[in-house]
């Protein structure tokens, strides 16, 4: 049960997914969900936005799912076995599941989906599944996946879009247009959408885990935070994901509404381009690390809806190191560092995405005070990616939604081949440690390796982490049973409305 009026404490909740029947059938309802953007892509191979998941996790089942403690639980894969060398995964697929178009879900559908993820033109899932060498159907409901090299993070990947199983019949028929008419086996069926207006899903009465209590889900985009919360408070939406920090107080004060904050995997950091001046100089980077007051950052920019963070692994996630230390906040020391290095007055451009304007101005103000000269440049997502992927920036602010396993959480940013390596990392030590961690089967050793890499990066201030996110939602108190899973996506199957 969601607790009323509890300010900002983490609320744990047991998932009511298993065994919840349509007991509240008399309360046939529509739940309107306010998102921060119109989900761009509902095809799992194209989806890259966080907002997509709000919808796709209802349409498609995944091979495995997560619980609130980030443990992997069965979903379409009822059980699995891993060979001793860590290379072969044998999955048992649930029987009796049908897609929304009536076709049966079997091992072949799983093989088709994984193949589609790997081979389709422009698939965003290729990187995540790059360790797969082969997928073989060894029985009507058995799939054997062989990896190129052991990858401890593999199962975690299958809990995301990479493991979302699509209907082969529908996918073949729709081709590139599948995203506009998605067909999965999930608790909700795609009913229709109008861009920038709504995406509507209807309950799947034949869902293998019992039909959902909610009849209809309507997702509406409200890019403006104040419009979003206004709709919540006026009944235009029953829940908003996320709620802006500045609206937390007024929403909690409003009768009938609640704000729920829970653990998230994500963080925000100041990422510098290490391949060229000024941030190729460790002294300059140290000055940045000494200049930042994380408590002030959390308070000023995020109204204390976030928590200061000094490393890549948020508290309560694997890899988190309570003993990790970063340079202390000391503006005078920062200025002294710059002076000693002869770099007082260093100029650079801070590249940001449009929604980070306040965040960017904060860093600009803080760094200006210690002797930098900072110019802010805003860029839309498309051109932004062009610049950072090609290391043509000085520094940028990165907001990362987070991954469950430490490997996808950290590897992409600091490994020389990482696809989010916007710092230009090319450090043999880091590469070696990350690669052995990937193949390491002993959890303790593995964790140790990640902590070592984190320590290295933080000691040399190669990335300066600022804060860890929290998932914060504003919700009507009539909604009950929302699972608080740290990946930030609400699974609506077991949720009821009073």
């Amino acid at each position, binding site marked *: 049960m969601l607790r009323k009026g509890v300010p900002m404490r983490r609320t744990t909740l047991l998932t009511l997914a298993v065994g919840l029947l349509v007991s509240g059938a008399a309360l046939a309802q529509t739940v309107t969900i306010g998102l921060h953007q119109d989900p*761009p*892509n509902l095809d799992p191979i194209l989806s890259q936005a966080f907002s997509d998941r709000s919808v796709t996790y209802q349409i498609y089942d995944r091979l495995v799912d997560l619980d609130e403690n980030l443990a992997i639980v069965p979903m379409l894969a009822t059980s699995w076995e891993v060979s001793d060398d860590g290379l072969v995964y044998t999955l048992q697929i649930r029987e009796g599941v049908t897609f929304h178009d009536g076709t049966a879900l079997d091992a072949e559908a799983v093989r088709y989906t994984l193949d589609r993820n790997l081979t389709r033109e422009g698939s965003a899932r290729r990187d995540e599944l790059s360790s797969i060498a082969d997928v073989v159907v060894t029985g009507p409901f058995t799939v054997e996946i062989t990896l190129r090299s052991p990858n401890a993070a593999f199962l975690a990947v299958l809990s995301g879009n990479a493991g979302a199983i699509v209907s082969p019949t529908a996918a073949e028929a729709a081709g590139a247009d599948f995203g506009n008419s998605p067909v999965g086996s999930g608790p909700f069926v795609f009913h229709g959408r*109008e*861009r*920038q*207006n709504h995406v509507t899903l209807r309950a799947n009465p034949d869902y293998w885990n019992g039909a959902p209590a909610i009849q209809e889900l309507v997702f*509406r985009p*409200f*890019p*403006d935070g*104040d*419009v979003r919360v*206004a*709709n919540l408070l*006026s*009944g*235009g939406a029953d829940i908003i994901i996320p709620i802006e920090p500045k609206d937390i107080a007024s929403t909690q004060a409003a009768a009938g509404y609640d704000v729920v904050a829970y653990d998230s995997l994500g963080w925000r950091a100041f990422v510098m381009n290490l391949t060229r001046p000024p941030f190729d100089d460790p002294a300059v980077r140290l000055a940045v690390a000494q200049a930042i007051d994380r408590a002030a950052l959390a308070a000023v920019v995020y109204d204390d809806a976030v928590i200061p963070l000094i490393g890549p692994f948020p508290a309560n996630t694997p890899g988190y190191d309570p003993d990790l230390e970063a340079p202390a906040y000391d503006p005078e020391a920062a200025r002294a560092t710059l002076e000693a290095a002869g770099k007082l007055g260093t100029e650079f451009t801070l590249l940001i995405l*449009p929604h980070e304007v306040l965040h960017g101005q904060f860093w600009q103000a803080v760094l200006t005070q210690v002797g930098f000269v900072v110019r802010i440049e805003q860029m*839309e*997502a*498309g*051109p932004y990616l*062009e610049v950072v*992927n*090609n290391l043509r920036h000085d520094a940028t602010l990165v907001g990362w939604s987070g991954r469950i396993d430490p490997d996808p959480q950290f590897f992409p940013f600091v490994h020389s081949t990482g696809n989010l390596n916007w710092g230009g990392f090319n450090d043999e030590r880091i590469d070696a440690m990350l690669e052995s961690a990937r193949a390491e089967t002993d959890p303790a050793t593995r964790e140790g390796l990640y902590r070592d890499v984190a320590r290295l990066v933080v000691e040399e201030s190669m990335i300066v982490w600022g804060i860890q996110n929290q998932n914060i939602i504003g919700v009507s108190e009539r909604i009950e049973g929302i699972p608080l899973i740290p990946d930030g996506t609400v699974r609506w199957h077991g949720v009821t409305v009073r």
Partner: protein
Amino acid sequence: MITFALRRLLATVPTLLVVTLLVFGLVRLLPGDPARLMLGESANPQAIAELRTQMGLDRPIMVQYGAWLADVARLDLGRSLVDNASVSRIIGQKLPTTIELSVLSMLVALLLAVPAGTISAVQRGKPLDSAVTLFALTGISLPNFFLGILLIFFFSVQLRWVPASGYVSLLDDPVRNLSLMVLPAITIGVGLGAILTRYLRASLLETLSQDYVRTALAKGVPGLAVIARHALRNAMIPVITAFGLQLGTLLGGAIITEQIFSIPGFGRLLVDAVSTRDLPVIQGVVLVAALAVFLVSFIVDLLYAAADPRITYS
């Protein structure tokens, strides 16, 4: 009348062509190669060259213009860079919303302007006239986004009378649709109404000084009847003309208002396309807007001619 209309139409064709030329050139202003923009800097040169040929970018500029014009004539405005949807279809979906908003705004404007302009003209020189004039000046000086914000603040946040934003189709839920359109329509309508008030006042003063009006008054016809039956009708003619010319203002107001109130209309489409640099959509929106203004001006011209026989055959 028909010949007149046709002749006027023919006369406007050159201007129309220049409009299309301007819109076509507008997007070409962007530095850099559209094909590179689409594929990304890291794409290999051969892929870029192929896409250029496919997009027809290697042909002479006038040929490109011709091809684009032919597409436009077939109502093909290209495809969005963001989600590959047909631009014409997107515009077709969003346009009715903005049309509804425009119509409601015009209603608000008229509801404000007709009484205000009439009172002001009839009470010329007296305090009521100054009051109305000041209100009209305030109306045109107040930025409509500021007014929108103030309206949200008072009526949605403080009083909770209407929801702050969002949109429901008129066909789905007329009551909610209208309640959501009230504040946006007022936001646009006030500015428009202020402009029209000034026009109406000037026009009405002119009409009231005409001989036939003086005669009617002298004959003892009650003042109100005179105004309503004679003066107002004739005074409205220049106002209707002004109306037509204000379509541009309406569209401009719609852009910002739709942004503030989260209405998924035509204006909002422009803002979204601008933020994603979706050039085909930007181009399509500007073109359709220009054509709309053009069309309305043309119709207003004809109506003006129809209403006032003196100018038809000039």
